[in-house]
């Protein structure tokens, strides 16, 4: 199984295919302190106004801040707005 994954990674690297498309890796785009866009996530584990915990394909993504809202929530991407103070990636 590990060999299969290694082989896949090597193929992606050699073909120069974006990793977010090939490996479904999460992309977090943060604009200033107010806005963040998360692509390629699996589900929401916890949503509070101070913290959003997302399950991604390669671990967890924790976004902390104040008055966090989700203006748009679609299967592909999630827009987060509020006073973002911390973004933590967990294995």
């Amino acid at each position, binding site marked *: 199984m590990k060999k299969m994954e290694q082989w896949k990674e090597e193929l992606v690297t050699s073909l120069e295919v974006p990793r977010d498309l090939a490996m479904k890796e999460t992309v977090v785009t943060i604009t200033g302190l107010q806005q963040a866009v998360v692509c390629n996530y699996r589900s929401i*584990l916890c*949503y509070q106004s101070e913290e959003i915990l997302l399950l991604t394909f390669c671990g967890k993504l924790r976004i902390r801040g104040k008055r966090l809202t*989700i203006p748009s*929530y679609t299967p592909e991407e999630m827009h987060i707005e509020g006073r973002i103070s911390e973004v933590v990636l967990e294995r």
Partner: protein
Amino acid sequence: MNRQRGFREGQVCLQIRGAQTERFLNLCRARGIRISRLVREQDESLTCEFSVKDFFRLAPVRRKTKVKIHILEKHGLPFFFYRSKKRKAFFLGIILCAVLLMFLSGRLWNIEITGNVKNSTPEILHFLEEQGIVHGMACRRIHCSAIAAAVREKYQNITWVSAELEGTKLLLTVKEGIFVQEKENEERAPCNITADVEGEIVKIITREGVPQKKPGETCGRGEILVSGLLELKNDSQEIVRYEAVHADADIYIKRKKAYYREIPLQYETEIPTGEEKKGVYIRVGTLYLGFGDQKQKHWQNVVEEHPLFLTESFRLPVSVGKISKKQYQSVKKEYTEKEVRARAWGILQIYEEKLIQKGVQISANNVKIEVDHKTCISKGFLEIIEKIGEETPVEISEQPAERTTEDG
């Protein structure tokens, strides 16, 4: 874009309460239900917006997660129409508006003319009006090629015309050519140049014809200055024949021009009191509707009228005007001798300037200003040099008989 779609399809704002709100969100995502404006409230409930279509897909999700859904607000056209179903006049208005829009969009509301310099826009618009092209006419009755042909035919100096209908606008693009009037080729009738005023000839430049006077000589009214009748002579200085030509010359004469002006010392003047009033009025055709004080006596009125235009060239028969009124007092005053002399001199200067603008030279000024107890009289004469001459027909003499050897 999403907002427009939400408005068109209708949106509901929901409050979701329960222990498994995150699971509710994940299930929505898995089913492709779009959620917007998701906010966690203080009381641990979620507030979010769904489209009406997605709202009806929430039932299985709600059953699974056991959350309570409460509708807070409803937005969008479907709800608006549902609420307004009893307002018949409103819907009638919408239909009427749509019909009116369709009707009016089939009419001509703007005529734009570009590229014209010598032929003014109002002139071309007037011609189009004569041809039946007016604002408000049906667009389907307009034949662009016919309009272009008519304009080309009417205006000879327009070399190229393009008429194009863009929506409710008729765009007329013209190109004007330069036509030099061929005066040289014109057949000019034979004539003399005669004096139209009396005076002393200062300068005479003859281009065609025989000058009859020399500089320094005086001429009377009606006297021939340049004759258009040429006498062609042979070697023995005998007239062989007469030939009539169009006499052409610049003749300058010096003459005296009388000047007389009388200014009364007493005069009436208007002194503003400082009181001002403003008013507005609306004029629809010949109807006039004024707002404000209508006092007329001892008030100076300055009226500023703005005609209303629907488009650049479509003038409505409605005008809006602004009236500024200033009160004045009529006061009788008397000039001092110095003042009246200055005024008389000023009037004389203006008169001289007008003469100079007409191409007259002033060689001497013999005007005297006299002031008595009632009036100031400026009298005398100005010595002027001006161009004269008028064309008069030539009396063609009988051609002399041809001499033969028998005549001796």
